[in-house]
């Protein structure tokens, strides 16, 4: 036994030392730097939300006298709750609408062969190239004509369907074999039933990814809700938070507290669906 162990140790000793891969450290360092950059604003947001007003411009991360007063103040202010609900209503409805209608259009463009299909798809895609800032004025004029100014409908209508969502869903439906659709057709389902019962469950990862994108996009939307709303009761959370800086002075501690509270739903949504969002982004990338 001893002999064997000795010989194996000898063998180990004669092995060439493993060459260290220093580029790995550089990669870690870069990632660490990137991570730090990303986490800094969030850390300051949280830190400021626990500070007294006189301490706001002090850049220390740990408040000297931490306080929950800002949270109590914001939560006791009825407006915050109202804005929170407004944002929630808008984000939820636009998300449901996008999941349904983007996938319906994506499915139609993918699985039905009809004249002009390609042109329609290109037309939808081309709208991706127009920045929101350019669309705001036409949207406003439309809202005015339809009498949608200062209403939920006015805030929501531009986002009820998106070109990106349609594109994403079309690409995902490409992965659903036609055999599934044809088998269902033979089994007697109508086209709407096939879409809902067969195709939709097969693209769940894409639906989840789309739901997250749309929810986050609408939860944080600022420019359009700011333009289309006049009454404070209809403000969304990001718009409402700015009133802390307009009406009195800039109350950073309250803005940061509101922002910290506003991130909670997005964090919940992300934590629930994160495995889908990663898969969704990867697959959208591959297919696109």
């Amino acid at each position: 036994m001893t002999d064997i162990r000795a010989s194996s140790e000898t063998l180990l000793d004669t092995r060439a030392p493993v060459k260290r891969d220093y580029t790995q450290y550089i990669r870690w360092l870069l990632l660490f730097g990137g991570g730090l950059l990303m986490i800094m604003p969030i850390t300051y947001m949280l830190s400021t939300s626990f500070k007294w007003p006189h301490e706001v411009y002090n850049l220390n991360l740990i408040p000297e006298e931490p306080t929950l007063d800002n949270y109590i103040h914001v939560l006791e202010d009825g407006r915050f709750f109202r804005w929170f609900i407004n944002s929630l209503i808008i984000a939820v409805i636009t998300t449901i609408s996008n999941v349904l209608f983007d996938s319906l259009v994506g499915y139609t463009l993918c699985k039905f062969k009809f004249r002009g299909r390609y042109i329609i798809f290109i037309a939808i895609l081309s709208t991706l190239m127009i920045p929101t800032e350019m669309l705001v004025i036409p949207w406003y004029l439309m809202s005015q004509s339809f009498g949608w100014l200062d209403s939920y409908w006015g805030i929501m209508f531009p986002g009820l369907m998106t070109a990106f969502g349609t594109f994403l869903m079309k690409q995902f439906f490409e992965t659903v074999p036609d055999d599934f659709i044809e088998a269902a057709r033979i089994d007697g389902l109508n086209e709407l039933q096939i879409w809902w019962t067969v195709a939709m469950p097969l693209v769940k990862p894409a639906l989840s990814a789309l739901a997250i994108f749309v929810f986050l996009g609408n939860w944080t939307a600022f420019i359009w809700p700011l333009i289309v709303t006049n009454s404070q009761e209809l403000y969304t959370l990001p718009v409402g938070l700015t009133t802390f800086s307009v009406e009195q002075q800039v109350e950073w501690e309250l803005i940061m507290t509101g922002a910290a509270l506003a991130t909670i739903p997005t964090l919940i949504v992300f934590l629930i669906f994160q495995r889908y969002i990663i898969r969704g982004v990867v697959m959208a990338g591959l297919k696109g």
Partner: protein
Amino acid sequence: MATLSLRNLVKAYGTTEVLHSINLDVAEGEFIVLVGPSGCGKSTTLRMVAGLEEVTSGEIEIAGRIVNNLEPKDRDIAMVFQNYAIYPHMSVRKNIGFGLRTSKMPKPDKEARIDEVAAILGMTDLLNRRPAQLSGGQRQRVAIGRAMVRDPAVFLFDEPLSNLDAQLRTQMRLEIKKLHQRVGSTIVFVTHDQVEAMTMADRIVIMKDGHIQQVGTPQDVYQTPANMFVAQFIGAPSMNMLPGTVRDGRLNIASMTDIAFPFTAVDGYDITMGIRPDDLRIGGEGTPLFEATVSVLEPLGSETLVYADIGGHEVIARASGRTPPALGDRVTLVANPEEIHFFDTNTGEALR
């Protein structure tokens, strides 16, 4: 169970015609196999019967009813796809029961029907599993179950065994055949595998380039092929083809052999002689046909495939596995005259 008739069925994509006036009558309870190489139009024919492709012209009749303008669901057919097309998000029970979703049958009857089909397919224990938890053969059985559950007039199978490994394919072949014997439904089965066609069919339809080449029982198409394509497509290894020319009323092949044939032909007429490797033996009883040199040997155990050279033409013969010839041997190839086929070299048609 029902009859199926195709009359002058044509399919064209734009100006390109891919199916040319197909005529076929399938009897009630018949197992018919459409076979042919890729692009021959067999799947297109099946999909037209299913209603998944539009008919350019001609008629499709199922159980005495023209179905050209009916939706797939109204044709009383069920189809099994090459990729199974069973839904990964549903259990086996839901997959099998899927065909009954739109049926007005009461729920307990539906459940009983699903159980009955599962029992026939030996899948009772697997009803609560998801497709991901099943093997390839089991998945294919689920697909068959979904087709069976509706008790359709005609079953359509579109290359259902192509995705299975060789052993499983043989097993499923047997199972489908047994199933047909048990339920006695009319079946149209598409495959590119001639072995599947031969082993399963009551009648085989051999197709090429959108034309039917021959319709007949497996014995018919094997023993009396209508043309050179059928002769070479059916049977493995495929039939030896030796082109020759008529001289003085006898067939001259490879400028070395004179062969008598049972019909008259003018001098200079080009005739191809066909003989199956099974029928070409080395020595023994029969008419000596050729002197040949053994060039390659393929031992298969019970027998040996002998590749032999006849004046520049290679032919395949079979020899006993126990006493095969050696490489380079000069051998005499013999056959019975009734096992020899003759074809018009120019048209490819069989001469009888």
